């Protein structure tokens, strides 16, 4: 058991994947000598060389497009998109090529490409550096979409994503990069499957559903609610596509109330899909409509306003309170 930051856990996970499989490559802007702007790839180029840790030209479509070509040749590229807001120049390659090519080939082609995206706000950044674009990708068939929330998951999930024969969009909560926790790097026996959700706090009154950066916020909200005598269950979804429906539905059927929390705008966000599925599967168990606490349906605001924009403990508890108003 080692204590490490989420950033370091990703680094160690990628290092292990590169040791295990010589076909694994890292590519992206500044991932080599610099080790990435968040240092997630720190030291990998020094140890694995420039052919395996590739500092690319500054063009996101090029990163994903050439990663597809490398995957066609048998490699397993792990691409870093430097910030969430920079993924859109690569959108065509991700949505039109990466996601669809295996189906277009009637299964002859597999594209084991991982696209790592630091996501979310809360770090006081300038515009385009704080976004949560997950719904664009969960809407695209052919992609798997996951989000880690803590160092232990970061270490295992990045390795599982790299081993997947499907393309994986891998969201990393950038404001949690420096938070530390224990990680067991000794064996894979304890690993949760990549597409399983995890109940991170048990409760009986309301189910909080979150992923990535909002898991910690929900845990804090649950601790605060406990002081008021409310028992909140917190589920870390971990995988958005596919969704671990049984885990979600089992919990909501027990509690009868659900609040979905994400940083992305509520309007047409991933929570909308989740709320619809819960309503369809758990209709007779619900004591209240499924509520959502999320970013406003606006562009991400200037950083002086982001504390108002982002859901926090109080916004989560406000939604929880409202579920008791029906």
């Amino acid at each position, binding site marked *: 058991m080692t204590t490490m930051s989420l950033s370091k856990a990703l680094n160690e996970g990628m290092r292990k994947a590169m040791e295990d499989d010589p076909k694994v490559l890292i590519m992206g802007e500044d991932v080599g000598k610099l080790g990435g702007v968040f240092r997630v790839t720190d030291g990998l180029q020094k140890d694995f060389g420039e*052919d395996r840790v590739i500092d*690319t*030209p500054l*063009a996101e*479509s*090029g990163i*994903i*497009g*050439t*990663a*597809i*070509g*490398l*995957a*066609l*040749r*048998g*490699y397993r590229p792990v691409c870093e998109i430097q910030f969430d807001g920079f993924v859109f*120049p690569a959108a*065509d*390659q991700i949505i*039109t*090529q990466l996601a*669809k*090519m*295996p*189906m*277009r*080939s*009637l*299964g*002859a*082609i*597999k*594209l084991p490409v991982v696209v790592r995206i630091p996501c979310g706000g809360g770090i006081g950044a300038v515009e385009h550096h704080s976004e949560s674009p997950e719904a664009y990708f969960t809407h695209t*068939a*052919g992609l*798997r979409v996951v989000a880690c929330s803590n160092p232990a998951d970061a270490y295992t999930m990045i390795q599982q994503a790299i081993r*997947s*024969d*499907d393309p994986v969009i891998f969201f990393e909560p950038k404001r949690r990069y420096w938070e530390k926790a224990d990680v067991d790097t000794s064996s894979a026996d304890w690993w949760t499957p990549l*597409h399983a959700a995890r109940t991170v706090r048990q409760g009986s009154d309301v189910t909080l559903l979150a992923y990535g950066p909002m898991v910690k916020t929900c845990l804090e909200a649950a601790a605060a609610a406990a002081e008021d005598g409310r028992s909140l269950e917190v589920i870390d979804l971990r995988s958005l*596509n*596919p*969704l*671990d*429906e049984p885990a979600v539905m089992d919990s909501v059927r027990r509690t009868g109330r659900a609040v979905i929390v994400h940083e992305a705008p509520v309007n047409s966000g991933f929570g909308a899909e989740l709320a619809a599925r819960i309503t369809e599967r758990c209709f007779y168990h619900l004591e209240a409509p499924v509520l959502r606490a999320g970013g406003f349906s606006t562009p991400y605001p200037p950083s002086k306003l982001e504390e108002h924009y982002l859901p926090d403990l109080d916004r989560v508890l406000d939604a929880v309170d409202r579920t008791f108003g029906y």
Partner: protein
Amino acid sequence: MTTDASRGAEAPPDLVQLLTPEGERVEHPDYDIDLTPEEVRSLYRDLVLVRRIDLEAVALQRQGELGIWASLLGQEAAQIGSGRALTDADMAFPTYREHGVAWCRDVDPVKLLGLFRGVNHGGWDPKEHNFHLYTIVIGSQTLHAVGYAMGIQRDDANAATIVYFGDGATSQGDVNESFIWASVFNAPIVFFCQNNQWAISEPLERQTRIPLYRRASGFGFPGIRVDGNDVFACLAVTRKALEAARTGQGPTLVEAFTYRMGAHTTTDDPTRYRVASELEAWKLKDPIERVKAYLFKNEHADQEFFDSVAAEADQLGADLRRRCLALPDPGPLAIFDHVYSEPHALMEQERAQFAAYLEGFQA
């Protein structure tokens, strides 16, 4: 901007040509090719057969058997010349018009029809033929090709990649990014641009102010303009560019100067935007007629040979038609096939729901 009614009627500057439209062999200081009569007859056969495949596909579309078809008419020499320059180990990335290159890569022509008939999105295994799927979004495949070439580098393999695209594609960001990538990584790739003068209705002048082959110098690698209707020159130039790629000399841009004799696709009507005299001028440069003239003049083939190729073409066309009509429609549950390579809960859920829904109609 003006529309030049004589577009392409004169040979453009810097054109590598080894066989004139009249069938005369000419020398070029940098490029030459030594072909046996047998090899020339084989190239002639390729040209005729792929034109026949194309003609049959156009007819199948006109009769409602294909939803759409993108004709290669006029571009046979560019495709056969470059396609026959490839070794088995080389990898080709096509657009959606490279039926001639597909022929060179031994892809069964009926497999090309699946996409256009709507029974699949691509019906061959790219690894089996070293011929990637058709790519419809313009220029996207250039990046895949460069990535593949970077893989060849890492494998230290004796192979190169060729990627096909058109004059319109040169305006795409992905194509320009692929030039940068190939250049800075010295990737073993040949960029084979078939400049057929038209991007649907937009003439070359809407894509560029300089000859396309000269774009390469700005990216730091050689660019060559070849007569795209001259199969000898296309073969010679592509061979040399591929060999340069295989031997660590990096990318080359080949601009094959040719002409789209037909419509962009079967849904297009070129009479709305181009003049008939232009087509007439290019008919005099037909890629097949010049090879026939060469074979005749040099007594490398007799009428019996030409008749036998024509008969083979007719047989190929009839066979293609028969097999196109016999292509089975996929079953409804095929919608869910191959979306993911590994099991996926949502796919299984929706497949089961839809199967149950369909069974409801059986009762």
